[in-house]
């Protein structure tokens, strides 16, 4: 059981990293959203598995939230937004996909080194989980900095949050405050982002941040 538990958790966590890399690979917005939804599904599975292994039923709630919000509601909303706003279908990249992938691999390696070196004393599961979570966080951040349009940046951010949830659930016995707050933050984040996107659209015809960035408060 111990072995199996570890292997399954390891598998899910690893999958999350893989999906994060896949996110980086996408060059179409709709595909990107789909992959993100898939990541949310994997995350939900992972969290559910943790709930089962740790015998922590409240984690099922987290899994459910992840599944419903991130895998269904948000992707659907984003799809509609793309259609309604007539946003470019391409993911506009600041750095080409190839180098981004390479950088992503480097980040995964870095997080492995950092974490594995750090927690020699901790148990395997936590260690591996943490390493993968860190990878997902860094990859999400990488996505935010290498993609130009707002939708992909938002997805990058949410992917980052996925990593956080992975880490939080992996930390056995973490007080539930944290899960709630994570979910809460994701929710609020999304709502506020939505509000802002709405307002931004009100004034500019695009959610591309570029249009906003041209106006930076100070004249150059």
């Amino acid at each position, binding site marked *: 059981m111990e072995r199996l538990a570890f292997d399954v958790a390891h598998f899910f966590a690893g999958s999350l990293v893989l999906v994060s890399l896949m996110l980086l690979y996408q060059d179409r917005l709709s595909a990107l959203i789909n992959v993100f939804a898939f990541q949310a599904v994997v995350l939900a599975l992972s969290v559910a598995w943790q709930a089962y292994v740790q015998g922590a039923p409240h984690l099922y709630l987290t899994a459910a939230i992840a599944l419903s919000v991130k895998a269904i509601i948000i992707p659907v909303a984003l799809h509609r937004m793309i259609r309604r706003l007539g946003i470019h279908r391409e993911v506009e990249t600041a750095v080409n996909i190839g180098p981004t992938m390479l950088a992503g691999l480097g*980040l995964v390696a870095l997080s492995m080194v*950092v974490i594995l*070196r*750090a927690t020699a004393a901790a148990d395997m599961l936590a260690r591996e989980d943490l390493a993968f979570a860190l990878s997902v966080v*860094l990859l999400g951040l990488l996505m935010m900095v290498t993609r130009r349009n707002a939708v992909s940046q938002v997805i990058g951010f949410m992917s980052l949050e996925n990593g956080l949830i992975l880490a939080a659930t992996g930390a056995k016995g973490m007080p539930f405050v944290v899960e709630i707050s994570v979910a809460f933050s994701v929710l609020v984040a999304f709502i506020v982002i939505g509000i802002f996107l709405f307002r931004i659209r009100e004034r500019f015809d695009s959610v591309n941040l570029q249009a906003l960035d041209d106006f930076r408060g*100070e004249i150059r």
Partner: protein
Amino acid sequence: MVALPPIVANLWCVAALLVIGAAAVAIGKRNWARWLVYGCSLTVSAVSCTIAVAHLIAAPAAGSEIVLPLGLPWIGANFRIDVLAAFFLAVIDLGAVAASLYGLGYGRHESAPERVLPFFPVFLAGMNMVILAADAFTFLFAWEFMSLASWALVMTHHRDEENRRAGYVYIVMASLGTLALLLAFGLMAGPDGGYTFAAMRAHGTPPGLAGLVLAFALLGTGSKAGLVPLHVWLPLAHPAAPSHVSALMSGVMTKVAIYGFIRITFDLLGPVSWWWSVPVLLAGVVTATLGVLSALMQNDLKRALAYSTIENIGLIFVALGLAFAFQGNGMKAAAALAMTAALFHVLNHSLFKSLLFFGAGAVLNATGERRMEKLGGLQNRMPATGLLFLIGSVAISALPPLNGFASEWLMLQAILLSPDLPQWALKLLIPAVGAMLALATALAAACFVRAFGISFLGRPRSAAASDAHEVDRLSIAAMAMLAVLCLLAGVLPAFVIDALAPVVQAVTGTRMPVQTVAWLSIVPIAESRSSYNGLLVFFFIVSSASIAAFAIHRLASDRLRRAPAWDCGFPDGSPVTQYTADSFAQPLRRVFGGFAFRAREEVHMPPPGDGSPARLTVTMHDLVWEFIYEPIARLVNALAVRLNHLQFLTIRRYLSLVFGVLVFLLLVLASWG
């Protein structure tokens, strides 16, 4: 009445000045505010000066000290008055008395009294506090406070772009100075924060660090005193302030800087090393020469005076450098001589420079002009001011029998003792210093012939000058007071030297021989070496001039006829034909300007047959400004422009920055453990 310890009395004076300043905020615009503020400042300064002089004369071995529960919490605000402090306090408060007296009259013409009155007593309080401070925090607090108050005074006439620039340069240089001093004190205090002067004296500074402390002390006090190349603010800021404040800044505040330097080096830093003298002498001599050369090239009367201040500061630092050299080699008597010369010159300069600035202020009031090219003929219109300004000019030109000569004579005597120094560096350096000192003195005389001659003599060059009237009696009284003191200090230098003896004793550990014997002549070492008697010289000059006058008037002729001036048979009544300040300086500019200012003269002659006038263009460069400050300003600007792009990045790029830092730190962690 219970006798207050001097330090307490002095602190009460400081407090009183602060209160006056605060009160002036409320009443600044009233007509009578001037009387109240300057009157009170005058009284308080006089009291403080008296206490200081009394302390100087009594010269108790232990200073009078007090710790107030203010300032830095765990050490409190330490104040102490010893003889060194008492001397400088006396100099400062004497200047303050004169300036307040002058302000009573001069202030009538002030267009923005509410911008002067609150800061004037506060400025005085700041200077007093610097001298009284006995811990690093209080010292720097007062130091910067003084700078700030004087900055506010410089900004009095803020509508003038020039003045704003002056204020800006001043406050930045003042901050530089404070920070440098802060570093110096930080080193002396050590990591445990022994910020009191007593603690610094007690545990001393490691010899390796002494050089660093000296460097920062030179930087810090030099920037306030006006050492080249830290002087750039001085000729801008001193003239910008109202004239009595200019007098305080030039005549008095620079002395506070000198005090700081003496306090740090001789008192706190521990045993003096001979090599300290090298940077000090170099800085001093460059300052003196460049200062006076610049003064010679100025058209603005007050600016010329400000540059002349730089020169005198240079002279004082030269004397201090000599004192280092002697002290470091154990030549006690010579060190005492050099130190006496420095302190004597401190006193002298404060007297005549205040006097001259008052004179310039009187001219400014009477004519509204600071440009010498627009003045002239004032001697006939403002005879009293003219005479007093002349006395100041003679004194600052180091001519006997006035006081400037006495102190410079002592300096030259000190230089003559320096061949006995063992170090080769000094053997080669000091003669050169002496030569430059002599050059600077001679140039100073030329400078004041020019300043006085162009401004007061000749025919008026503008309507403003020809309509000028004598200034009010209070202003003249202030000037007369200083002029009399100049004469007294020049004629009776022996008394001054003896009064300085306890200070010199405290600083160098020995003193000059008692001077007030044998006809009051001053004898630095031995009568066979050299001696000078100001009183006798004065007496001789006066009596022989009287004899000559008497003889000629009685035996020959005393008839006098007024006639037009000789015009070479080419009548042109215009005062424009007179020599101007620029043309007066032209020979000297030809001789020295090419080197010191890269001066170039260009003559544009119209072709033959063309009736248009020929033109002479003179270009001069302030090399210090161009080679030190402009590059710094350019560098700061370039960096500011370059970094400013960071204000205009996209959010994505900002995130990249965060991301970059994160990855960097992770890499550090990965490679660290």
